[in-house]
């Protein structure tokens, strides 16, 4: 089976030699959610930006649907994968429906009908259907994030890259977003998601990637990655995974 996304040896350094990504390799297959976890500054968002094609890596290779991502045009990439940024911005006053419809830009005017359908479905899936004519700027931070999630869903990507999609949400909305991502995976799509909430990572992800100082220090099932030793090393916390409830219990943070 060809991986939807496969990256090998991604290296990225700042001008002063600080390593942001240290030979990171990963793979996302159809039908799975892969979670990227790690402390603040571990390189999670940077990794996602490299994979999304926003930042170029200094070395390494990214294959998208088996093809070198660098050989694909920005429009080709946009039709295969979608990226949900950590803090979505909108520079002009627009209605919710317009924001979601921006996801269809890359398909051109020829697919207007399919586009309108995809936009309506994405709005319904995220529960934002009733908000479609509301002014985006007037929404709460959580609602804005749901609208942006609807936007990336509306482009019907085979691979979805999401940077902390649950950060600004209350627990009910967090569950909803993760269930939506789960649904995407069940539909045969791939999801790569950066998460801060380890319990959500344990519950919803098929595999986890633990980043520490730009390098992958553990990879595998949530049970294997969320070990006491790994959590101690990456987060400097004494915590264990309660496998029965898929919950990470933090004992102390000394």
């Amino acid at each position, binding site marked *: 089976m060809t991986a939807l996304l496969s990256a090998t040896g991604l290296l990225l350094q700042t001008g002063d030699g600080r390593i942001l990504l240290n030979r990171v390799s990963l793979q996302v297959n159809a039908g799975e959610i892969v979670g990227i976890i790690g402390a603040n500054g571990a390189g999670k968002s940077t990794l996602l930006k490299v994979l999304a094609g926003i930042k170029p890596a200094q070395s390494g290779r990214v294959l998208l649907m088996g093809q070198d991502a660098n050989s694909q045009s920005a429009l080709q990439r946009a039709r295969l994968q979608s990226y949900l940024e950590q803090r979505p911005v909108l520079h*002009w006053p627009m209605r919710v429906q317009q924001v979601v419809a921006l996801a269809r830009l890359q398909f051109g005017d020829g697919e207007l009908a399919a586009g309108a359908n995809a936009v309506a479905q994405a709005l319904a899936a995220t529960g934002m259907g009733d908000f479609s004519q509301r002014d985006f700027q007037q929404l709460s931070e959580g609602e804005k994030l749901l609208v942006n999630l609807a936007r990336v869903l509306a482009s019907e990507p085979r691979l979805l890259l999401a940077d902390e999609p649950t950060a600004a949400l209350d627990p009910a909305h967090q569950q909803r977003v993760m269930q939506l991502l789960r649904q995407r995976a069940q539909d045969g799509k791939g999801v790569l998601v950066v998460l801060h909430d380890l319990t959500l990572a344990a519950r919803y992800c098929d595999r986890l990637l633990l980043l520490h100082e730009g390098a992958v220090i553990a990879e595998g099932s949530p049970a294997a990655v969320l070990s006491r030793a790994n959590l101690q090393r990456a987060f400097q916390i004494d915590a264990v995974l309660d496998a029965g409830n898929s919950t990470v219990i933090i004992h102390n943070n000394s």
Partner: protein
Amino acid sequence: MRTSLVFLCVLVAVLWLIELQSGAASVNSWVALTDWWHGINSVARIILLEVRLPRALLALLVGAALAISGAALQGLLRNPLASPDILGVSQTSALLAVCALYFGFSRLAWFVLPLAALGGAALAVLLLLQLTRRLADAQSLILAGIALTALTSALTTFALNYAPNPYALQEVYFWMLGSVANRSIAEVLLAVPFFAVGTALLLSSRRCLDALSLGEDTAATLGFPLSHYRWRLIVGVACNVGAAVAVSGSIGFVGLIVPHILRPLVKSQPGQLLWWSLPGGSALVLLADVLVQHLPGTQELQLGVLTALLGGPFFLWLLLRQRS
């Protein structure tokens, strides 16, 4: 939305016909056209075809060029206060045009003057793009634009003071305030290719401007990386502003106000705004030029003075209305 666009185009057509009828002399257009048809070189024909027609065409084209440039700059910099004159693009363009004109370079070839104006505009947009990387907030960029405007306006006066032409000081008014009066069809033909190329470049970038509503990073992931479109937009704005300045000086406020008025009508879509700005800009400049010719006074007012007189208070009103 479509009805408003049709209305706007009809308004432009009506204003254009009124502009053709405006002027000091009373000319029967029908007589002028029949004279032209029969090859009679009458006064009416000369006034209509050699005085009024170039002026009306330039008002139409310059207005469209400035307004679409303003809309493109606002979309590119994601700043509603951006416009060719506020950011100093027109003035930098004027500075290079003045240097080319008064130091004799424009006599080398017909395209030197518009190319110099175009180069000045491109230089200013490039500088502003560099500044946007350092000055993230909207206010700082506008302040930088004001500094550039002041500097290049002063340098233009400076260049004119040292120019070998004794009448140069009078020309300061032309370059700083702008006018489409006393132009010939040659100037229209000079500007048209640049307007056409510039407008085509800007319109072909309209989806990128739409995508940029979500910021540069997201635009890139939507398939519209700014790195692919940056030059298209810079050259597009430079062609339009450069050619407009080369034939009419720097006419203020058009690039700022027209996109502002039209933005609610296109539901803030930057790409759509480009299309609408074309007739919008033409309508504003034609209206201002008709008014200039009908206002009482011994000397005709400069067009740029009137766009500022109309535009300044209107813009303030718009700002106040948005705040409330």
